[in-house]
């Protein structure tokens, strides 16, 4: 394990140096909204406020992404032939991604990069990306990542982990991609490994202590029967409260569902995919007109069952929730996945 130390005074210089080799993405505040965006040439990641409303999932999975395009001009030789557009997949680096969001990328990968099917758009973007994480020294009141297989200093899915240690960052280099990024940035001051790892451990313990004891339990989810959970009485009350907007799914770092749309304008045709949401009545509506989730209760149940049960059963890689807390924070009616998870985990059907 190599640890690099970066004086904060050198930070911007290194970021500038890295721009020669990478397109940079990072947390920025525009129009009062904190987002992960591609940084403008004179823009720096906001390392003081990296907790964004939207997760960085859009770096690999844009809300609207053109998949194919064609010309409808009958005089063109290739008219009506759909082709994949030219996309820039040169190296990108996501700076300041939180550990829970990095775990989310690893979970989304299970869906987009499978032995049976490999989503070329997501996978190409993923292959091009280096994830330079920033540990969470001060977890928010809605952060429950330690209960969901991640944590404020977790390393899964990251190429490097920066730890804010006051005047400097201590950077754990985790993969060759991480190594390459620091080399491009010119960050090469190797820290005393034992000493810095001890410092990191202290900050980690402090952060985890601040989060308090685990209050979200997932240990019994795997042994529950899907049908029992389906029939649980608590979905009705949840569905009453839920206004059925798509906020939770859009702010969620692991929600990967999309809808494909064809559009034309003049002589150009395009096939797009857009983020979709299981909260929408249209989401599973069949061509026949039948809708297996026509009722709100069915849709609300679907979201939690997918996150906390179906995914767990299918991949055996934990829940599809990483505990970032965005849905808890942003739900207009404060539906709290922590409570739902505990209800599911402790549910025993009435015999």
């Amino acid at each position, binding site marked *: 394990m190599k640890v690099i130390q970066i004086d904060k005074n050198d930070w911007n210089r290194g970021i500038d140096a890295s721009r020669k080799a990478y397109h940079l993405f990072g947390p920025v505040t*525009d*129009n*009062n*909204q904190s*987002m992960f965006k591609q940084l403008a040439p004179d823009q720096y990641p906001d390392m003081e406020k990296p907790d964004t*409303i*939207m997760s960085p999932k859009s770096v690999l999975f844009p*809300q*609207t992404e053109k998949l194919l395009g064609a010309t409808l001009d009958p005089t063109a030789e290739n008219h009506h032939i759909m082709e994949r557009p030219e996309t820039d997949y040169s190296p990108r680096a996501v700076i300041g991604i939180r550990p829970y969001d990095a775990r989310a990328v690893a979970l989304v990968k299970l869906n987009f990069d499978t032995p049976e099917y490999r989503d070329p758009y997501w996978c190409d973007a993923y292959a091009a990306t280096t994830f330079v994480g920033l540990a969470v020294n*001060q977890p*928010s*009141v*809605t952060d429950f990542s330690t209960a969901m297989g991640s944590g404020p200093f977790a390393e899964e899915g990251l190429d490097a982990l920066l730890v804010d240690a006051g005047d400097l960052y201590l950077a754990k280099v985790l993969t060759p991609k991480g190594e390459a990024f620091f080399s491009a940035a010119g960050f090469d001051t190797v820290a005393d490994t034992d000493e810095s790892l001890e410092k990191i451990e202290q900050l980690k313990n402090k952060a985890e202590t601040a989060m308090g004891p685990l209050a979200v339990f997932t240990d019994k989810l795997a042994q529950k029967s899907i049908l029992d959970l389906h029939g649980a009485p608590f979905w009705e*009350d949840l569905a*009453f*409260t839920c*206004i*059925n*907007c*798509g*906020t939770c*799914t*859009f*702010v969620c770092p692991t929600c990967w569902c999309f*809808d494909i*749309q064809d*559009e034309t304008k003049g002589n150009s045709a395009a096939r*797009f995919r*857009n983020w979709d*949401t299981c909260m*929408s*009545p*249209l989401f599973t*509506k069949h061509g026949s007109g039948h809708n297996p989730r026509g009722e709100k209760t069915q849709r609300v149940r679907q979201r939690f069952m997918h996150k906390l049960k179906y995914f767990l059963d299918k991949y055996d890689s934990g829940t599809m929730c990483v505990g970032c807390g965005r849905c*808890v*924070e*942003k739900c*207009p*009616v*404060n*539906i*709290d996945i*922590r*409570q739902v998870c505990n209800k599911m985990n402790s549910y025993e059907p009435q015999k």
Partner: protein
Amino acid sequence: MNAYTEKIRELSSNLLREGKVDLVIGFKQGTVPMATVPAIARTPEEAATFVWDANCSLNLANYLTNRTEKIGIIAKGCDSRNIVNHIVENKISREQLYIIGVPCTGMVDKPSIRALFDLEITQFKEEGETLLVKTLENELKIDKQDYLRANCRTCMHRNPVIHDVLVAEPVVEQTLEDPFKDVKAIEQMDDDQRWNHFETLLDGCIRCYACRNACPLCYCPTCFVDESNPQWVGKGQDPSDVRTFHFLRAYHCAGRCTDCGACEEACPMDIRVRDFTRKLVKDSLEIYGWEAGLTLDQRPPLDTFKPDDPDAFIK
């Protein structure tokens, strides 16, 4: 516990105990600071967990649409106006409702309170008109009236316009020199400025439709943006599609919007979507002398027809 909460619990529990209603719709305490949860109580015990504070911002009339039970509902001024809308538009009947009216002194604007601190808010307490807000590192006592939502600052109907019982004496209604300063500022912009204003306004929209779903007026069985056969509007992030959604949503609210602010309250991106509907509220008042949701005896101006309409286009 504040006096409103106490009274709401008492009245709701009694209604359920006496069997006068099947359920009561109110607010429960949320799991994070400054959050409340719209919820149903079917038993007196459940009603005893209701709360009332300056975060009960959503509009509970939204939960009445097409319900068939006998319902008790907690209603502040704006909720009561949307209940009137719902009755006039046949989404619920007056006989089904027992309205527990709450004279309101305004709901707080969460973004502007959050903006006071660098750190996130860990505690929020209300003592009368004073708010005590804490973060991990500091705390502030602020005057609620300085941090009201924009729609509460221009609200002219703080007292419920329809109710079966009130939880307290009516409050004094506000007198405002000009409730439409904000709209006029936009009206006075030149075309380019105005275009730019609305374009920037919608910059962060993620089309989650929380504004629509929090709105008691939006109860169409299938919203035009969800129609797929035919499809009226593109579903992506193309600005023309994002704008189409917002413009059409606003126009569907013309003459019906009570400016309750639920749309802005629900928006995860803090977009000031009322900039669209406010203009329609002003026009309704100026053109038709109409304020939505004040009377059960008259239909809104845009769903009536008069054979003697003075305008030539209709003849």
